């Protein structure tokens, strides 16, 4: 078993446990490489990868690009702040235009759930989903899992709390799929308007009390709250959110144990997370960023390997 079962990485839901373990194991090797004085390897020489970002992103785009450069792939970037549909060209046209220039792999972020599925069924290139709307963000879940394992060992039977806007979070959904496959226990915590009614079907616990959630868990993955992107008001104010769901030092001090704090970034300091927590020794937020490059190198390396 040294190959992925799938030609694409579109979502964690469709990866096998072996796929996930293989990616995590391969990432360890790449993490060692990117900490060497010479960080670049020739592994993906002559492979051309297009990064198509139809939605704003800084860190994910940079992380993918860096991973590609360290693997010696040829990289082109396409960014568009709004979706191509609104611009007048269809997604399929945009992608086929780029593929005509002999591109092997596409990394795509898109605002619409299922966009990566849509593309994978219609083009020959390999697809890496870098986030499709509120659906999945598989490399984020893999790097989160990798970072947890680095800190607390095997996640099997560990207790992971995911705190925040679950309903609009691809990070939450991919984390749930990934961690459940690896045998972790999951508790979701947030305002009741931001937790889908049927989420229990995924085999997770739900709480609306952040103190309870923190007391229960080994790791708290705190999500970014984005009031400005919601067309419907799901909670009254960021102030009230911070009061009832914000993770701060007072809350952590009350616990009779130490827990690990994670955040996919960018942080709204003072809203979901206060600075005294984000910058504390409990936080592995910057490790997540570093591991992101290794995970993405592993994913693209394994996909290219599959194709060859």
């Amino acid at each position, binding site marked *: 078993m040294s190959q992925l079962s799938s030609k694409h990485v579109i979502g964690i*839901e469709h990866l096998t446990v072996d796929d996930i373990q293989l990616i995590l194991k391969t990432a360890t090797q790449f993490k060692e490489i990117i900490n060497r004085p010479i960080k670049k390897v020739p592994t993906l020489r002559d492979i051309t990868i297009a990064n198509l970002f139809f939605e704003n992103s800084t860190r994910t785009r940079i992380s993918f690009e860096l991973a590609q450069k360290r693997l010696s792939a040829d990289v082109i970037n396409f960014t568009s702040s709004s*979706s191509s*549909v609104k611009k007048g060209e*269809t*997604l*399929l046209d945009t992608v086929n235009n780029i593929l005509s220039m002999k591109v092997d792999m596409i990394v795509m972020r*898109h605002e*619409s*759930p*299922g*966009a990566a*599925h*849509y593309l994978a069924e219609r083009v020959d290139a390999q697809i890496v989903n870098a986030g*499709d*709307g*509120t*659906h*999945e963000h598989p490399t984020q879940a893999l790097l989160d899992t990798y970072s947890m394992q680095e800190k607390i060992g095997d996640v099997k039977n560990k207790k992971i709390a995911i705190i925040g806007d679950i*309903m609009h979070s*691809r990070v939450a*959904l991919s984390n749930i799929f990934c961690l459940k496959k690896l045998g972790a226990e999951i508790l979701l915590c947030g305002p009741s308007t931001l937790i*889908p*009614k*049927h*989420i229990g*079907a*995924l085999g997770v616990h739900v709480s609306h009390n952040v103190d309870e959630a923190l007391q229960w868990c080994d790791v708290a993955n705190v999500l970014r709250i984005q009031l400005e992107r919601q*067309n*419907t008001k799901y909670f009254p104010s960021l102030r009230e959110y911070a009061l009832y769901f914000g993770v701060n030092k007072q809350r952590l001090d009350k616990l009779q144990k130490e827990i690990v704090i994670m955040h996919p970034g960018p942080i709204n300091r003072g809203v979901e997370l206060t600075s005294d927590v984000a910058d504390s020794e409990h936080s592995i937020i910057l490790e997540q960023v570093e591991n992101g490059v290794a995970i993405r190198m592993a994913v693209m390396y394994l996909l290219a390997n599959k194709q060859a």
Partner: protein
Amino acid sequence: MHYLLKNTTILDSTSSYHQQKVDVWLKDGKIEKIDTAIQAEGAEIIDFSGCYLTPGFCDIYVNANDPGFEYRDDIDTIAQSALAGGFTTICATANNHPITQSKAQVEYIVNKAKHTAVHILPIGAITENFDGKSPSEMHDMHTAGAVAFSDVPHSIKDSGVLLRALQYVQPFNGLIISMPFDKTLVGEGLVNESAISVSMGMKGITNLSEYVAVQRDIELLRYTGGNLHLTGISTAESVALIRQAKTNLPENAHLTCAVFVHHLVSDENDVKSFDSNYKVFPPLRTQQDQQALIEGLKDGTIDCISTQHTPLNIDEKNVEFEYAQNGMIGLETAFGLLNSKLGNELSKEKMVELLSKHPRQIIQQPSNSDFVIVDFDTEHTVTEKTLHSKSKNTPYIGKTMKGKVKAVFSKGQFIVQP
């Protein structure tokens, strides 16, 4: 024209030949004679052994798209699709451009349909520009030939507007058609709300968004009396509410309802692949909902079946699921799909009632001599080529179905299907 149709079994409970195997003699656009063993000199003889002759099918919910969206379908191609599916009477929604909301627009459809072999009956808008506020000239449209009034695919949010529409059309025994849903509860939902919508990362559309509107519409009808037809019922709760309402509504309040073909043959599991051809509104629901709909058909709670025929161009469908428009074409696949799925659960008579007798009663059309000859056993596969609609937006292409329309007699024309 001069035909002798041999050995077909009549399936029409109002006919004295019901359940009898007969010959039918067609001459000069009329049924000359029905009898056993007719001799008709000079007639082209076609043998329909094993086939059934039933009244022509009738669909109360068809988007004809003419005028305004002729690239999807027009009156002529809609008529061809209808005939291919055995429908001799169809109602064209007001969802055109411009919206059918005046006498002139009703007359346009009536006149254009005259040249086709199908009875295409216009539905007028309840409110001007579907704004949900200002009533359109329903009496005048009725006089010009509109058979019902509806703002589908929109629902009327303002209860007062719907109440006054139900009252206003009563002097001319008008029919109001409502597709019940509360838009504020639908929100940004794209698929049925369930564990599946969660896994797809999509906002769900709750059953609640439909049945609160069903309950409201029933109470409005209870107050006003008149004729209300609820179309596109998709949830178990709605079926239960309608079942109960039918036992206790006052005599002057006539409630009927329809279910769409695709809700009977597909369910939310089909959407998992993000195939936008399954994107419809109301969304495909759970298997439990589907079973409740079938029970509703069996016990008479649901009066008829509609197709919600919605032609859409490939560019309106072959996009990301979220951006794809709602709807699928349905006229040409309706009978095959229904018979394949429900052939063992519904009797042949019941199927014909749901497709022809009941919808005709709902839109108050007198019986005519239009008929369709169907074979309940022949298998055939739907392909893009066999579809007459300009649009090919159906997930059932490539599907093999049992049951085929063999011939249609409509408006004096006899058409044998290939």
